[in-house]
């Protein structure tokens, strides 16, 4: 690398990280503004909950700790939810890190690869063992959360947040995007989460279904599977690279 240019860049970067004034402050503001607004766009419900001003303070702290590593900011903030858990003030909003996780699942689902999902009929044939097993759709994202964060997230999807008093218990979040402009965002229970988790970690559909049925004998796992299939949660193995 050209040594003088590299030295200049490092000096300039150090100036941006310092107490910038005058013209350097313009560059510093732009650098922070770009990262903060990317974070705001990627965590819209956290932004709604905190309010624009508070979000900006939080985001500046985060950007200082975890600056962007790639120029594609559409997925910036992978560490944001975990970082929130370590902030002292978040004790007043114990659901906030999980809401950030839901925001993240949503963005990841929106930007993942497109694939034609297995039809419900195809999925049911696979479930009954009369055709090959299935894989998860590349745009599916899900998580099990220790707080009712998905209920809170869903309440913030309208133009005006709904007033909710969610039951304080764990729940699952699912995002399924069977086509570019269609996204489903339901809460899921532990049996659905068990089926999906098993498949994510490489279990066959049959094994995942058997485990879910054993763990949750009072749930209708076939009906749950059918619901997931209707959301476009699966692909046939031969469509994985289509």
């Amino acid at each position, binding site marked *: 690398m050209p040594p003088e*240019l590299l030295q200049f860049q490092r000096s300039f970067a150090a100036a941006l990280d310092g107490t910038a004034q005058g013209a350097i402050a313009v*560059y510093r503001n732009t650098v922070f503004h770009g990262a903060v607004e990317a974070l705001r766009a990627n965590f819209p419900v956290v932004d709604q909950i905190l309010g624009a001003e508070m979000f900006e303070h939080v985001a500046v702290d985060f950007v200082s700790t975890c*600056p962007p*590593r790639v*120029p*594609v900011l*559409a*997925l910036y903030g992978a560490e944001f939810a975990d970082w929130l858990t370590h902030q002292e003030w978040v004790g007043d909003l114990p659901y906030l890190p999980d809401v950030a996780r839901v925001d993240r699942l949503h963005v990841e689902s929106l*930007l*993942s690869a497109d694939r034609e999902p297995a039809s419900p009929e195809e999925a049911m044939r696979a479930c009954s063992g009369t055709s090959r097993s299935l894989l998860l759709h590349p745009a599916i994202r899900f998580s099990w959360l220790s707080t009712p964060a998905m209920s809170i997230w869903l309440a913030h999807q309208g133009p005006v947040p709904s007033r909710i008093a969610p039951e304080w218990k764990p729940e699952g979040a699912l995002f399924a995007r069977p086509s570019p402009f269609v996204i489903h965002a339901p809460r899921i229970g532990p049996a659905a989460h068990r089926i999906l988790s098993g498949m994510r970690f490489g279990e066959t559909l049959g094994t995942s279904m058997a485990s879910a049925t054993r763990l949750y004998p009072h749930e209708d796992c076939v009906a749950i599977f059918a619901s997931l299939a209707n959301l476009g949660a699966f692909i046939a193995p031969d469509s994985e690279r289509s």
Partner: protein
Amino acid sequence: MIPAAGIGFKPRHYHEALTSPAAGLWFEVHAENYMVAGGPRLAMLDELRSRRQISLHGVGMSLAGAAEPDPGHLEALKRLVSRFEPAMVSEHLAWSRLDGRCFPDLLPVPRTNEVLARCTANIARVQDALGRQILIENPTHYLALRDHSWSETSFLSELARRSGCGLLIDVNNVAVGAHNLGFDPGKWLEAIPGTRVGEVHLAGHSLDTEGTLLIDSHDEPIAEDVWKLYEAFIARIGPRPTLIERDGNVPSFQELMRERSRAQALLSGDLALAA
């Protein structure tokens, strides 16, 4: 055919962009916003591209930095170019990547022989990978760096000569830099070789909070002095594809199209309409 004026595409304008009857209208997008695996962003751009020409404007290649272009980033740009077959591909005379960190800005460099050589090599690498010419945009200036060996216009001209790239002249950047550093924007534009210019950008600017520096904020209508500079520039070099940029306080599609119509009238030589 007279080169046309375009506008920066905003997803909120999607349906109006698709159905606009404006002849020759084209759209520019920031390439990095579309370097994703799938989903609505790419689907919208596919649909737009099926009806209109587009331009890919990169902001993250860090061509004026000491490092070579990131291979993964270059590969992502190549995929976009292959998918969308844009009319123009452009980047900046700036750096934004250093030691594993990315700065969401277009940072300046001293115009030295060393930077000229590095930048030439980086542009050549991008052009070789894409198999086509790219355009390089002149940066905004807020800071009078020491140690320049070249004037900016000579540097850009030489960069274009050595690398074979074209130039994207942002007239607002010239006006902002002229205000902040105290040079004559008209003379700056006169020194640019017209044959190298493949595109022109027009945008708005604002004053900083201290009221001293102009900021290339892209959040205001294009200023009258920028329109005058543009008119003289186009009169000298001839019509070029011209982009109306707006990234903050984004107005209605119709308002952007009014600015676009003014640029289009100037490109067409219809001074009565452009007034």
